[in-house]
């Protein structure tokens, strides 16, 4: 039995899904869009499979989340719909319910957060509500796991006995006439393609283009429908969309009048207003936000992340040392020895090195997201990002990009629109990640000892400027047209559940390991092969004889116009693809410096002028991110082609800007 779990954003849908399935879930994608499709088996009910659909407010045909949900409900025909609604915010939540009821699929309503309703002295007459809207209604508290087993039983029953929504009688007057007239016209065609006729009729009254196309009506039929709607609009003195929204809300108001007894806003809502008095305060909002994000960064990339990474390094190093000894003891062939130590172990090490950051960062991010604070950040920061065609929602993922592109791109998943997700993913790599910092440090020391801080800041600013220009460009080209409207709910603050956070961290860590492992691993091995052998597959002792050095020499002329045509520079850029830190270590090896401290004086041999050195930094800042980031971007864009194209564009942009800056610097 397949159950579709549907509800608004912030109604506790994810919490309920986690309660139903536990860790027994997996995340996939709806085909062709970057919209999550989570599935799981209900615990102790092996035959019941739940599909967690995106959090939406309506079944309008505008956003990919809504379209995906509609298509799933109409084409995949789940056995039952489990519609979860927030009882503290029942009016707006029932709006989606009314649209779902028209789909003619067995359906149960879960009235979530009933504990908050009760504890605030309010009440909802569940029996009456159920009788009025003709649905089984189960009061629950997903976070406290109250009423969930009762809910499962009712859903199972509804699916098994095919208990359809009983009431369609929520249209009035002219709208009623129009819906029923259109129903008669389209019935044969809707039945033929398996679209619920009532749903189709309502959508046609609303002027839903995809539905019109789907039904394949004749010109004559379309004409009649047009007349019916025109007539309705004329009599009602309003347009079709407003008429239907008004019809639904009027009906909901009647239902609430009869069934909901509300003396006051819930305590949680009252408390939220007070908390917002500080967190979205005119003066304090931004300083508090900066403080919170600094703390998150400090803990993630400094304290906790660094400690965990340290332990991990110690662990990997000791295993590596042991293996190294064993291999030496066994007199293993040097090539295989090197493959295991410099290839395999280094590869595994570089994959694992991302883990602490991802786990710790997503702990904080889900804390901020689930508590409701992220929506406030979007509210506070919206104005800054609007000009480049994004909304405040994208601010945090882009900010995380300064730490590491990998979790930043993963964090775009919380953005509520596909368009914003794609655009944010495209721009995030321009935020200078922390792995590039050692490169800036070494170069500043070598070439600009007096202006080191200025050079570093200029690079960070340059990255942001390029992102802004990129945003403006994307906005007016690929992502032209319909930006998703920024009409966002500010949910009440709630304590996030430990379970949800733990599952979220686990999901991200697993996701990264599964998806990124192969790509990073293969890349490390490839680089190892290129570094270790020449083209006759003899092991090289002098690194300048390796395949990598040869490839570096071949592509070096590409960088000559940027001021650094030396093969060692291009070789370092190639190894930088495995991890940006590798740029410095490769330069150290290739110049024979041994370590980066001795590298400083030798760099002048590769970069003849300060302009060339700066140009190299600019290129390093902007060219394609490391393979771990690439793997994540590919995963989030769900397309290898798009990921490759976006990397190619980025590298092209890097070349162009480094070229312009180099030429300008030479003029000075």
């Amino acid at each position, binding site marked *: 039995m397949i159950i579709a779990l549907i509800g608004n954003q912030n109604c506790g849908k994810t919490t309920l899904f986690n309660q139903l399935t536990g860790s027994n879930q997996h995340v996939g994608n709806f085909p062709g869009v970057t919209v999550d499709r989570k599935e799981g088996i209900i615990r102790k009910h092996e035959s019941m499979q739940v599909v967690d659909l995106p959090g939406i407010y*309506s079944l309008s045909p505008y*956003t990919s989340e809504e379209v995906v949900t509609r298509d799933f409900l109409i084409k995949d025909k789940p056995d039952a719909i489990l519609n979860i609604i927030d009882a503290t915010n029942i009016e707006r939540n029932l709006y989606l319910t009314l649209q779902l009821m028209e789909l003619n699929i067995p359906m149960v309503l879960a009235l979530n957060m009933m504990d908050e309703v009760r504890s605030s002295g309010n009440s909802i007459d569940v029996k009456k509500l159920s009788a009025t809207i003709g649905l089984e209604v189960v009061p629950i508290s997903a976070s406290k796991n109250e009423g969930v087993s009762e809910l499962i039983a009712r859903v199972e029953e509804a699916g098994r006995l095919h208990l359809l929504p009983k009431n369609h009688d929520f249209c009035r007057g002219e709208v009623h006439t129009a819906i029923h007239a259109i129903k008669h016209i389209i019935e044969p065609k809707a039945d033929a393609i398996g679209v619920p006729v009532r749903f189709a009729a309502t959508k046609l009254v609303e002027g839903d283009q995809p539905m019109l196309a789907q039904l394949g009506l004749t010109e004559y039929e379309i004409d009649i429908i047009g007349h019916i709607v025109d007539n309705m609009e004329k009599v009602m003195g309003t347009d079709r969309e*407003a008429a239907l929204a008004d019809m639904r809300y009027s009906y909901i108001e009647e239902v609430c009048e009869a069934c909901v007894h509300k003396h006051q806003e819930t305590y949680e*809502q009252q408390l939220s207003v007070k908390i917002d008095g500080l967190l979205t305060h*005119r003066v304090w*909002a931004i300083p508090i936000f900066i403080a919170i994000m600094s703390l998150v960064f400090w803990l993630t990339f400094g304290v906790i992340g660094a400690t965990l990474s340290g332990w991990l390094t110690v662990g990997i190093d000791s295993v590596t040392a042991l293996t190294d000894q064993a291999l030496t003891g066994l007199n293993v062939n040097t090539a295989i020895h090197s493959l295991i130590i410099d290839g395999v172990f280094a590869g595994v090490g570089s994959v694992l090195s991302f883990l602490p950051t991802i786990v710790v960062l997503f702990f904080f991010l889900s804390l901020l997201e689930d508590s409701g604070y992220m929506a406030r950040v979007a509210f506070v920061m919206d104005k800054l990002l609007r000009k480049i065609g994004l909304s405040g929602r994208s601010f945090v993922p882009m900010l995380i990009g300064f730490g590491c592109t990998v979790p930043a791109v993963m964090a775009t998943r919380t953005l509520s629109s596909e368009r914003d997700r794609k655009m944010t993913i495209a721009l995030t790599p321009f935020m200078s990640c922390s792995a590039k910092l050692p490169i800036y440090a070494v170069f500043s020391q070598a070439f600009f000892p007096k202006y080191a801080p200025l050079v570093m800041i200029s690079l960070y600013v340059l990255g942001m400027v390029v992102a802004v220009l990129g945003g403006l460009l994307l906005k007016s080209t690929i992502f032209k047209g319909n930006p998703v*409207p920024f*009409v966002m709910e500010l949910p009440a603050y709630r304590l996030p559940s430990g379970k949800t956070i733990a599952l979220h961290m686990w999901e991200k860590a697993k996701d990264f390991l599964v998806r990124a492992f192969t790509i990073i691993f293969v890349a490390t091995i490839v680089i190892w092969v290129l570094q270790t052998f020449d083209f006759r597959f003899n092991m090289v002792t002098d690194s300048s004889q390796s395949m990598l050095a040869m490839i570096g020499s071949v592509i070096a002329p590409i960088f000559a116009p940027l001021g650094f045509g030396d093969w060692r520079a291009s070789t370092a850029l190639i190894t930088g693809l495995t991890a940006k830190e590798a740029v410095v270590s490769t330069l150290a090896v290739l110049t024979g410096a041994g370590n980066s401290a001795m590298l400083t004086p030798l760099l002048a041999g590769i970069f003849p002028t300060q302009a060339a050195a700066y140009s190299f930094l600019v290129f390093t800042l902007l060219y394609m991110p490391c393979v771990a980031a690439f793997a994540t971007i590919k995963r989030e864009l769900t397309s290898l082609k798009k990921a490759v194209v976006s990397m190619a564009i980025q590298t092209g942009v890097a070349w162009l800007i480094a070229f312009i800056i180099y030429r300008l610097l030479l003029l000075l």
Partner: protein
Amino acid sequence: MTLDQLKTGSSGIIISVGGSGALRRRLLDMGLTPNTKVYIRKVAPLGDPIELHLRSYELTIRREDAANIEIDEVVDG
């Protein structure tokens, strides 16, 4: 007057929602329908967007979008 002209702390009753396409539909879907009472809770620190209270929840929309919503100011809170 339009919703964006309403001062923080005051309320209005929606007369009509203008505009078109996805944005207008979203506004209607979120409950900004005629005859609904809307209270202006606050303005974001940078002056935009604004936070509304309606149908017992908090909603934020941009000023330029609020300008599409025709309202009658409620004089007495």
